[in-house]
């Protein structure tokens, strides 16, 4: 059954899109991530323009992170003051991202920047995750303690001024790295159509030493607000959010995430991180391939406006 997408301006098979929503939702539920980095490339692959894909996926991520955030809220696993601090700069980052997105589209370089950023981000993060989980696996095989890095050790981050205390996370850190992290996640998310959970969680753990009890819940709040505001900003400036597409994705995603979460709970942490790392790395390679190999068609067309 085909349905016509009013903004993407093309008919798609409703079950295909729903299936994609389910599949990405399943993966996102399993790993506790938004899944934007999978959803956006999939939409581009079925023929939706990168611009519409990025803009529409933001609302999909907003929905799935809201479901997650509510669950973590019930478990009291969200550090509200920390989330607020991250948000204050996150929204600014989102606005900057949407502005740059519009500019790049005007210059015909949006697709390139999306491609290059995906390659850099995904291969780096993927490689780090694979490396880390393999190391952890080897350590447990040898019977050594699981963590070599001592949680209490100090880095340059702890020498920065404007220190603040976050009670629920039991950390005492400078506001500067908090703002910087919030800004960069908002910025990256708006340009690439990703929630940034897979970047934010490691950043919060390594730079701010946020404990695992509050890290995912807090990161979901940031994702939720930056993505919901990115939806509004993309709709208001570029008119590229396809609500019909978003609706199908959201319904599929929310259902898929529940089943994914159940599967994820049955698996071991390291094994899960290794799988996620491989997945992230593979998507990065796919983008690299597209950039390096000569495309079948060198020419492309973009609508500038009606007369």
């Amino acid at each position, binding site marked *: *059954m*085909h*349905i*016509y997408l*009013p*903004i993407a*301006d*093309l*008919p798609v098979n409703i079950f295909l899109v729903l299936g994609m929503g389910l599949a990405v939702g399943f993966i996102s539920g399993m790993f506790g991530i938004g899944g934007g980095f999978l959803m956006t490339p999939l939409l581009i692959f079925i023929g939706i323009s990168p611009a519409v894909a990025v803009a529409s996926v933001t*609302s*999909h991520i*907003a*929905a*799935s*992170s*809201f*479901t997650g955030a*509510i*669950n973590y809220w*019930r478990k009291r696993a969200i550090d509200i003051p920390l989330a607020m601090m991250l948000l204050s700069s996150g929204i600014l980052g989102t606005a900057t991202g949407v502005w740059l997105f519009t500019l790049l589209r005007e210059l*015909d*370089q949006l*697709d*390139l920047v999306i491609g*290059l950023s995906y390659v850099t981000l995904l291969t780096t993060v993927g490689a780090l995750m694979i490396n880390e989980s393999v190391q952890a696996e080897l350590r447990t095989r040898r019977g050594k303690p699981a963590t070599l890095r001592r949680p209490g050790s100090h880095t340059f981050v702890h020498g920065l001024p404007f220190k603040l205390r976050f009670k629920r996370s039991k950390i005492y850190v400078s506001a500067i790295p908090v703002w910087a992290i919030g800004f960069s996640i908002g910025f990256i998310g708006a340009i690439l159509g990703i929630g940034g959970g897979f970047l934010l969680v490691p950043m919060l753990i390594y730079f701010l030493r946020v404990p695992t009890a509050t890290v995912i819940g807090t990161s979901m709040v940031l994702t939720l607000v930056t993505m*919901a*505001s990115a*939806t*509004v*900003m*993309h*709709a*208001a*400036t570029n*008119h590229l*959010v*396809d*609500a019909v597409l*978003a*609706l199908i994705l*959201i*319904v599929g995603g*929310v*259902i898929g*995430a*529940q089943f994914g979460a159940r599967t994820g709970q049955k698996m071991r942490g390291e094994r899960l991180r290794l799988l996620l790392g491989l997945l992230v790395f593979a998507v990065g390679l796919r983008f690299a391939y597209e*950039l*390096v190999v*000569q*495309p079948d068609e*060198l*020419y*492309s*067309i*973009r*609508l*500038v*406006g*009606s*007369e």
Partner: protein
Amino acid sequence: MARRAFIAGMLLAACTALPAQAERLVVSLSNHRVAVTSNFTGADLVLFGTIEPDRPRGALRNAYDLVVTVKGPPHRLRTRRKDRVLGIWVNVESREFINVPSYLGVLSNRPVPAIANPEIARRLQLGLKNVILTQRVGADFADTVPDDAFRVAFIKLETQYGLYRESPDAVTFLTPTVFRVAIPIPANAPTGSYSIDVQLFAEGASVARTNSALEVVKTGFEQYVADAARDHGLLYGLFASLMALVIGWIGSVVFRRD
């Protein structure tokens, strides 16, 4: 035999008695309005027409050719070309196509080169090769030569999208003077008014011309969504993110496990 003799006689009479032999085209479109609904996957319109002498008992010729050019609402497109820069493929050069039809169908009963000679075809803009596609080259606005790389790529891409097409078999003559034209409207046809230009040829010369129009409209929900996104972007965005939150919330309630 008697009929052919009669026609020949009439032809002769026409040549001598009338200042010029002339035909009239009468066409009728099956549907002037194509509605794009949620399950729209394209439509085929049919244009019927007859060739009549422009005065009673006027003469008609033996064989006619018909070229129908359907043009969608004009818009502005940029065609970009990728080149290899530092090992990766980047959009480097681009040209803007101004005031070009968003849909272009050239429908005929046989290939355009067989109907009219290149000179006439160019003058009457017959076929994808001859339709004027204005480009902005620097400060100038002009169409380029037919084999310009950007022009060729532009037409090739539009043809792949199904928006530009040249069908030398879309016109069927049911009798020597009654014809039927199949006008395909693809699923991605832009909305707006389309012009239909019908040109009649005999022995390589244009003998009659008429036109018609059709409209492609988005109806119901699609139109509503597209209008809202364009005219009330902020409100639309707020609605879209509210929708996301409500569904996210419903998800957490329905699947609540604790």
